[in-house]
């Protein structure tokens, strides 16, 4: 089977991140790899660069990874996390400019259908604009 784009859900809240990942899994089952990273390094609300790196690594494949984020710091920390990856992986990871829940669901559906990384991103980013 062709490898599919993986998904990473990043939220300030670990409950939100885990919950969105659960919703994605409910839709796509085992068809795509989903990981989540939520909470700051001390376990409170916030995001953690190391956890985001680990989540990306855990679902990484040559098909790439689409990252979905909630608010500002989640995006900045995700960008930092992407830069900390090996250069060969970095260019196959995108941070989607889409609402967390809807974007992740649309992106997951697209990824499950076998679309490539750019199409997954495009579907997620354009969904609410149409």
């Amino acid at each position, binding site marked *: 089977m062709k490898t599919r784009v993986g998904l990473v859900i990043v939220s300030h809240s670990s409950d939100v991140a885990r919950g969105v990942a659960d919703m994605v899994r409910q839709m796509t089952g085992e068809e795509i790899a989903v990981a989540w990273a939520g*909470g*700051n*390094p*001390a376990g*409170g*609300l*916030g*995001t*953690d*660069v*190391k956890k985001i790196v680990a989540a990306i690594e855990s679902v990484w494949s040559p098909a790439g990874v689409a990252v979905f984020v909630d*608010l*500002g*710091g989640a995006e*900045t*920390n995700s*960008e*930092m996390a992407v830069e900390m990856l090996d250069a060969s992986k970095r260019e196959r990871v995108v941070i989607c400019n889409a609402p967390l829940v809807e974007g992740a669901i649309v992106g997951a559906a697209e990824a499950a259908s076998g679309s490539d990384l750019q199409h997954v991103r495009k579907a997620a980013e354009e969904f609410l604009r149409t």
Partner: protein
Amino acid sequence: MGRMSPPDGDIAVFLHCLQAVCGELLANEAELSALDRAIGDGDHGANLCRAAHALLEAADDLSSLPLPKALERAGMLVVTSVGGASGPLYGTMLMALGRAWPQDATAGAVADVLEQAMEAVGRRGRSTVGEKTMLDVLVPAARAFRESVASGSLGAALQAMVDAADSGLAATRPMRATKGRAAYVGERSIGHLDPGAASARLCLRAVARVLCESGSKELRS
């Protein structure tokens, strides 16, 4: 104007700065969080205190490194300990300083690197002066330092930097935030100081104080 400090004293001065900055952050946690609570999520003080604890814990390790490496490593510690956007922003500043630190660290050369580091922070946050962020302190402070160091003593340049940081912070009060969590409160952000600008001013003041005290003998000449 001479070097910022004798070459083998660089790391000692850095450690003093680090301790002063961390002390300042720990002492002002409540104030920084109160500023953030008014227009954001109220975690700025706690976030930076996590960084301060991580840095103080690593101080011995950092002191065994050459200064550029110590700056980079300190930046990475900030990135991985903060948990909010200020982590990558302050972390980027330190890493940019470390990567570009001049071999011959004259005040003028350091001033150029400092200004470049503030530009790197702006790129990281995709932000610029006037958007009610730490950049409203960092950018004018670095510029004032560079402009003043070209013509005057280090002490005068540090004073100019601190003065620019003060007025940069004050200037954030009437601004409407368009970046960061404060952008969500929109109009209601007007009338409040920006917490990131406030922490930036605290850090720059602490560094300036240490450099004035420790470096003045070499530098005033």
